[in-house]
């Protein structure tokens, strides 16, 4: 059983007492000026708390979370690997924190050089010609990449190509990104082996095809064995290949997507390059491209000259994806990680991520059916069909009682009752053994005491929550 903070914690508004404040400010040393009458604000409904109350409140809230620092967190497709503490120290240097984005290139040479080095390093890891660190997350990288494809097609005069192919195992951001770039999506089914159905792909390739978005390894944790053939066919049909790099943790130092024919790709630096997920973000979604598409990258990107570094727009850039230069603080952490892993370390990362996943799979597949009988990459998908009347959701909630964060569930959509498990390389064999034990014991309970699962979790700060009520009568703001 885990030890979480089980006490009810009031909301900041409920803790508020008129007249308190949590921060002292210097006395103003200038005269007061009148705010124009028609602009004056009367009411400001913010809480009033002293500093210790704030500290206790948020400390207690933090204790109501599972996190990598406290629990095994094998959330499939999210690469919840250990986030090295030194990255936080590196990123908290005042030379970064107090660096204004518009200070001017000549006053920010250290930052520009870091951006340039990281661009170069990541470009090398992916096997691409150039990279941009503008995108703030994976989905933002996807949006950039499909806009680049759109721009390249338009330059060719190919305005009629509007169809983007999306495998049925793809993450939801892929089709959503296509819509934002004005493409229509067509789903390509997976075959018996969990890879793209090649016959279906061939049939879908017509003169309206703009490209395909491929995740490799895919969200089943399986390597697309026909990746070269897929890229060749799409190129022959006049389209481009987008690579979703969310799963690069399986491949760093082993395989370079750029060499297999992928034209443009994002990496999720918050996954593969170990930056903390922050309860939802920030991420960083570097996008890299081969010679064909590099000039369309979003900008600005860092360029090295004899005299120093500058920020420049690539010649045919799709433009800016956000203000300034990406989630820079995240980039510092990723760079620190890249330095510590290096060529040899990145390969070790992939090897151990893949070994850990296969090992865990071998421990549980006798009990939890694994629909695709192949070696997996960094993650695998099993089914929660261990007893009648028990669902994957119940198993997930019961895992909480054993002190583990549940895996990703009900995704990918093509496997019913899916449990998508990604252990990552930073977990030890002991942890994997304990997790497998828990899963097996839960399968036993599912048969003998299903109510234990249905009522789970038992040891969390709250029980299962009424999501129907939350959505029917939304309370989205404190109404005190």
């Amino acid at each position, binding site marked *: 059983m885990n030890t979480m903070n089980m006490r009810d914690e009031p909301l900041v508004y409920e803790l508020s007492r008129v007249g308190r404040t949590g921060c002292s400010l210097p006395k103003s040393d200038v005269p007061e000026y009148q705010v124009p009458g028609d602009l004056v604000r009367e009411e400001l409904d913010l809480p009033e708390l002293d500093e210790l109350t704030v500290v206790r409140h948020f400390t207690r809230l933090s204790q109501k979370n599972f996190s990598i620092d406290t629990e095994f967190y094998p959330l499939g497709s999210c690469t919840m690997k250990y986030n090295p503490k030194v990255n936080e120290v590196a990123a908290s240097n005042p030379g970064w924190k107090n660096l204004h984005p518009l200070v001017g290139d000549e006053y920010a040479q250290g930052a520009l050089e870091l951006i340039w080095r990281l661009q170069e390093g990541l470009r090398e890891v992916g096997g691409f010609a150039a990279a941009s660190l503008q995108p703030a997350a994976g989905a933002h990288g996807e949006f950039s990449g499909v806009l680049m494809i759109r721009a390249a097609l338009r330059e060719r005069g190919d305005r009629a190509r509007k169809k983007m192919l999306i495998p049925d195992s793809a993450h939801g951001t892929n089709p959503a990104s296509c819509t934002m770039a004005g493409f229509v999506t067509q789903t390509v089914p997976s075959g018996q082996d969990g890879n793209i159905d090649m016959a279906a792909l061939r049939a879908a390739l017509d003169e309206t095809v703009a490209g395909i978005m491929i995740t490799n390894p895919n969200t089943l944790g399986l390597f697309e064995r026909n990746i070269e053939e897929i890229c060749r066919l799409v190129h022959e049909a006049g389209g481009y290949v987008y690579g979703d790099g969310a799963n690069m943790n399986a491949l760093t130092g082993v395989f370079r997507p750029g060499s297999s024919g992928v034209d443009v790709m994002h990496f999720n630096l918050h996954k593969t390059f170990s930056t903390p997920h922050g309860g939802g973000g920030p991420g960083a979604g570097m996008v890299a491209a081969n010679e064909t598409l590099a000039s369309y990258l979003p900008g600005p990107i860092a360029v090295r000259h004899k005299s120093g570094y500058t920020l420049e727009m690539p010649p045919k850039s799709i433009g800016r994806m956000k203000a300034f230069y990406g989630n820079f603080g995240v980039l510092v952490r990723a760079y620190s990680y890249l330095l510590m892993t290096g060529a040899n370390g990145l390969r070790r990362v992939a090897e151990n991520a893949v070994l850990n996943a296969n090992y865990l799979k071998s421990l549980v597949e006798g009990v939890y059916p694994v629909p695709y009988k192949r070696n997996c990459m960094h993650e695998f998908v099993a089914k929660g069909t261990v007893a009648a009347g028990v669902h994957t959701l119940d198993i997930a909630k019961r895992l909480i009682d054993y002190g583990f964060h549940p895996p990703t569930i009900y995704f990918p959509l093509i496997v019913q009752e899916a449990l998508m498990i990604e252990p990552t390389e930073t977990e030890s064999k002991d942890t994997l053994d304990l997790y497998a034990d828990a899963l097996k014991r839960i399968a036993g309970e599912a048969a003998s005491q299903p109510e234990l699962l249905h009522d789970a979790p038992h040891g969390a700060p709250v029980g299962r929550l009424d999501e*129907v009520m939350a*959505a*029917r009568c939304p309370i989205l703001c404190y109404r005190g």
Partner: protein
Amino acid sequence: MAIDKNARYLESHEYAKPSGEHMIFGISDHAQAELGDVVFVELPAVGKTLSKGAMFGTIESVKAASDLYAPVSGTVVEVNEAVKNDPSLVNKDCYGAGWLIKVAPINASEFSGLLDPAAYGKAIGEE
């Protein structure tokens, strides 16, 4: 699953049911069960003209959302305000209090082209 004998169906599970000179649209019992607890419905404004097969709204549970398609062409004459305020009516009584919109049909022959109760039963795997 209940199949209203007076209604006719689309394979996408919307039904049309005559009500005087008008038609009532809703979703079938099978559809509401598949969807689970309905939390939200979005319906068109009165006066809007729908052609057969056009999207006329969406219906949502916590984890799924389905677009709604018009079984026949018509002009919306009434929207079920009760179901907008209490979407659980769709779960409780999809052929009755949980109806969605009422239309004045434009082409009467479209109705007979829909799946009859037996055919719809077959389509959802019930005899």
